């Protein structure tokens, strides 16, 4: 397992955000994490990325507890939920990629941009791009440090269908050609069914983790997922 999560629990002022989660991610996995809003997907990612450290349980990346050493976190590239880019922020795409710590190498930047089909726009201002294009830039930014794992938190929210398809195609290529393991949270069950080989279904507790086909062929499981999603939706409103 390249990521091994054991008995992970997170408590926000007495409210359980995650409760006793255990699962692993193997090399080459394309894991789709599904669950309603408030299910704890972002909290799980924050813990995995070392951004949230107040948790019970252990998270190991390449067999090392991330509490003991943050060194292995550099193997994880992160693409946030929605890029919040100030339209007037004076930085070119190339500059945005070079902000990453180990990325002074311009060849690596060009290579990363080519992988997301953005190399021709390298000298454009980041604020001039569409949200979909910005998200591709953020994948390239994550790729600059040659990560072994890519974590994406609902990356296609608010993106048009053309850019969504392009985005998924890029993720598929990164997984199959570059052998990058992908952990991706999404509400889009169709996309998860199409792309992911593994599924983790989360609603504060983990109620499924396994092969994608197994989840999508289990009518009971899908019914349970829709019911909990509806309950969470009603709860939020």
């Amino acid at each position, binding site marked *: 397992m390249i990521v091994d999560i054991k008995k992970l629990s997170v408590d926000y002022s007495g409210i359980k955000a995650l409760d006793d989660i255990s699962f692993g991610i193997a090399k080459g996995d394309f894991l789709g994490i599904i669950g309603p809003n408030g299910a704890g997907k972002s909290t799980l990612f924050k813990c995995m990325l070392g951004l949230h450290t107040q948790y019970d349980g252990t998270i190991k990346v390449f067999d090392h507890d991330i509490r003991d050493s943050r060194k292995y*976190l550099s193997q994880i590239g992160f693409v946030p939920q929605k890029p919040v880019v100030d339209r007037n922020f004076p930085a070119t795409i190339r500059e945005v990629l070079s902000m*990453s710590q180990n990325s002074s190498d311009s060849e690596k930047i060009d290579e990363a941009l080519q992988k997301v089909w953005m190399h021709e726009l390298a000298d454009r*201002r980041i604020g*001039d791009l569409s949200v979909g294009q910005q998200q591709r830039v953020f994948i390239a930014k994550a790729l600059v440090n040659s990560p072994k794992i890519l974590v994406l938190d609902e990356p296609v929210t608010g993106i048009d269908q053309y850019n969504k398809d392009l985005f998924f195609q890029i993720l598929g290529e990164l997984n199959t050609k570059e052998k990058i393991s992908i952990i991706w949270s999404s509400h889009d069950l169709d996309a998860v069914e199409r792309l992911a080989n593994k599924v983790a279904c989360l609603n504060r507790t983990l109620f499924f983790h396994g092969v994608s086909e197994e989840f999508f062929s289990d009518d009971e499981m899908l019914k349970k997922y829709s019911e909990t999603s509806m309950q969470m939706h009603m709860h939020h409103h």
Partner: protein
Amino acid sequence: MTFEAVSYESIPHALVSGIAISILCSAIGLFLVLRKFSLFGDALAHSAFGGVAFGLFIGIYPLWIACGVAILSALGLTKIRQKFDISSDAIVAILLATGLGAGIILVSMSDDLEIHDIEEFLFGSAIIDTPNVITILVMAGAILAILFFTYKKLLYSTFSEEQARASGIPVEKMGYLLIAMAGVTVVISMQLVGVLLISALFVLPNVSAMLYARSFKKTMMLSMCFAVSATVSGIFISYQFDIAQSGCIVLVAAAIFVGSLVAKGSGMVKTTGILAKRA
């Protein structure tokens, strides 16, 4: 109240220190402007004024006291802001009012203070002596060196705190470093433009440059050029017409900003910038 114009003898000192201060204010100011913290320089200057008044009150060289007071109060309030989730503009208002209030009380309590001593810090001085010029050059050089080695991390945490944190960048520490550098910059710049006009050097050249350049490096270089032009022109205008130096510098910077707006509004400069197109 007297405002000082530059005399012929004081021009070299004013120019050397003015150019160093302009470059420094542009560099630090760009990060503040991009963090939507444009008035933070103003707030630091006002709290530094409290420190100046305290230094004069107890008879110790006021600029170092001002430096300590500005940095400590800004760092303290930043901690409070993070812990109690207070908005940045409220922190700016608190720093600004408290520093000025403390300064006014200390001035009113002192019988020995000459109003001229205070004016020079409020409105800037046209006469900067050799030891002060050396201090300005050394401090400016030190801050620019720190900035050179940390700018990537500072820029990343300015661009996206969340992503910078996920990449292992100590975002909070970078914020404190920026505040400390801004505090020192404010204190050494007070001598040139004074407490009341200092934010102009932080903000105007950067906002003007952002209208033209599309990359961070070009924005910073252009901003430095605008700031140096405003300072050098301001000093010579002050000498030529025998009017206040600090006001001249700020008005030239404002004129550059208005000129940039007009150039952009009339279509002479597109969003992506004429300079960027040539590059």
